[in-house]
């Protein structure tokens, strides 16, 4: 069995560990062997976003040392993949030896749905779900990685699942890390639009591939629309949409 290195974002590790478990079970199901480096911590995205490049640079080097030898690295988060793929080479631009390692690693890091569909050429992972679902196009997945068709193919192949359109699917949900907390008025207004569109879609479940958006939209649904379900695509596929993703 082929080894694949798991890159578990700290949000998943600390707040949504079941998404990590779902990722493992999904990968095993399609015949690859997930391995996990216990030395991994955080990719550094919060520091880069806050402008702390010196600290982020050190963390990037740690990440490269931990994952640098892996043939394939897979993560259930698009924004963390973007950090490694695009921001590491920028951060290390002045250190040629690290830069070449960062660039090499960048080409081997994949977001989960991208890995399944583009690399493994798998669409049907044997999932089934009796109901309507809709898909939120997270910014870093869609515009950062250009991934949009892949998750939809995986959903489309789940038996019984009916993928219905979501109005404004590609508009930001208002997360943006520290933005959600520091600009709550604007963030909430964006989030309400997103949730209204979800409610109006008539779908039973909102699916996405980004833990950050899940915390944001899920946090709002849990507070204001407790019956409404949101799920990471990995959990949806691994558990046939049965387990609720919000909480741990």
């Amino acid at each position: 069995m082929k080894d694949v290195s798991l890159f578990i974002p700290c949000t998943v590790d600390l707040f949504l560990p079941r998404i990590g478990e779902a990722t493992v079970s999904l990968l095993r199901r399609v015949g690859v062997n997930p391995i996990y480096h216990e030395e991994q911590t955080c990719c550094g995205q919060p520091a880069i976003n806050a402008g702390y490049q010196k600290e982020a640079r050190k963390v990037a080097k740690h990440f490269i040392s931990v994952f640098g030898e892996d043939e394939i690295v897979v993560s259930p988060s698009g924004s963390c993949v973007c950090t490694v793929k695009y921001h590491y080479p920028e951060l290390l631009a002045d250190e040629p030896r690290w830069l070449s390692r960062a660039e090499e690693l960048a080409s081997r890091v994949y977001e989960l749905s991208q890995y399944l569909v583009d690399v493994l050429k798998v669409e049907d992972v044997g999932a089934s779900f009796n109901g309507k679902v809709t898909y939120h196009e997270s910014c870093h997945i869609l515009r950062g990685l250009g991934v949009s068709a892949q998750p939809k193919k995986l959903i489309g192949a789940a038996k019984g699942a009916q993928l219905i359109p979501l109005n404004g699917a590609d508009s930001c949900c208002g997360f943006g890390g520290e933005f959600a907390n520091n600009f709550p008025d604007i963030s909430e207004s964006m989030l309400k639009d997103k949730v209204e569109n979800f409610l109006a879609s008539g779908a039973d479940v909102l699916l996405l591939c980004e833990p950050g958006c899940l915390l944001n939209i899920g946090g709002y649904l849990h507070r204001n629309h407790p019956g409404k379900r949101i799920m990471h695509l990995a959990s949806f596929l691994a558990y046939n949409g049965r387990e609720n993703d919000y909480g741990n």
Partner: protein
Amino acid sequence: MEIKTDQFTELAKKELKDERTRIFLKSMPPVLTEKREIGLASLPDIPAAMAYGAAIRAEAIARLPELLEEFEKNALANGAKVFWARDDKEANEFIKNLAIERGVKYVTKGKSMVTEEMALNELLSENGIEAWETDLGEFIAQQLHRPPFHIVGPAINVPVEEIRDIFMEKANMKEPTLDPVQLGLAARLFLRDKFHHVEMGITGVNVAVAETGTIINVENEGNIRFTKSSPRTQVSVMSLEKVVPTMKDALHLIRLLCRNCTGQRLSAYVSMDSGPKKKDEIDGPEELFIIIVDNGRSKIYQDLKARDALRCIRCAACLNICPVYRQVGGYAYGWAYSGPMGQVLNPLLLGLERTQELYRATTLCGACKSVCPVGIDHPSMFLYYRAKDVLEDPDLKGKKRPWIEEKFFKMWGRAAIRPWLWDLGVCMARPVINKDASHGIISKAKGPFEGWFRTRDLPAMTGNTFHERWKKIKKA
């Protein structure tokens, strides 16, 4: 115009509560984004056309000093007079003195962002020279004393009733009406009279062509052409980054500008001036002054990363698609330039210290970057400004971050490269974060994280992280 870039949050809050702004923002920006897509669809290869636009602007910026000299040489050869203004004061002073020397009582103006940046109208009016904005939207905004809500449609949000009232009061409109055609006619009649007697016209410049010394304006109302052709004296003000090498480059930029701006293949009017009226010509201004305004740009130019901001051609595609602009509109940004292009430009023109919230009030969603026809990477610029704050960069006037934030990221950085310390940190943080958790959910928090919990819950930090679960998972 009063600069309020340091009041972003308050101004945004006000707009978020304004019912009319809400209704307007729900409909108009998405319609403009859709129009853009339809406009672009008339190009045979959209990504190629955008890449070409980016390449033109990248080259123009890389060769800026040389191109400006070439432009000046050719403009002078065409008979234009060129004035280099180091800053807004020099530009304003020159134009004011020119108006006084020529003895003009008023000027007509074509829509121009750089003269908003310079606050030219205010200075002219302080010196007894009335400046009449002749773009319909700009005219309305001027009469209402409002800043621009949108860089292309400054009064796009003003309800028609308000336009009726202000036209009755200030534009000699005889009968009250809500008919847009009649309102337009009233403004035209009023302004036509101004055009008839105007002795000096002031416009901006969309593109300046180095190889021919030509300045180009695009517009839909014909008011810029009037402003350029009616008076004896024409003054065209350009910020110094407007220049491109060739006419071919300029034409491609116009193709992109019109499509990205209003979805048109070409605006109703495109006017090109290569010098004032020649001897054998029957009309046109007798003298043409081109004011090239620096106002901080050559300093921006010295910063290889920041200079990318100078590529902007003011199409406003980034405003229309921006999820934050779509919530708060243009007033919140507190100055002439709004939306993502304002968030990129204002910090450079005004300094980071005065614009703190502008480059933080973004989710880094990248919608702006995805539509930019000249290849500006807005999110990357925002991160650059934030990093300059952390370094307290003197050139960009970076502002020191709160000590608690600095301390946090230092500690975080130390732990994130030492797995044992990271694990220890997780164990220590857990009870603090979960202090108010109940049934695995946190619903409230005091202090720095209140913002999140106003309308959102958060799962409690797990007692059993993925990391801790791994040993079991591995064996399963």
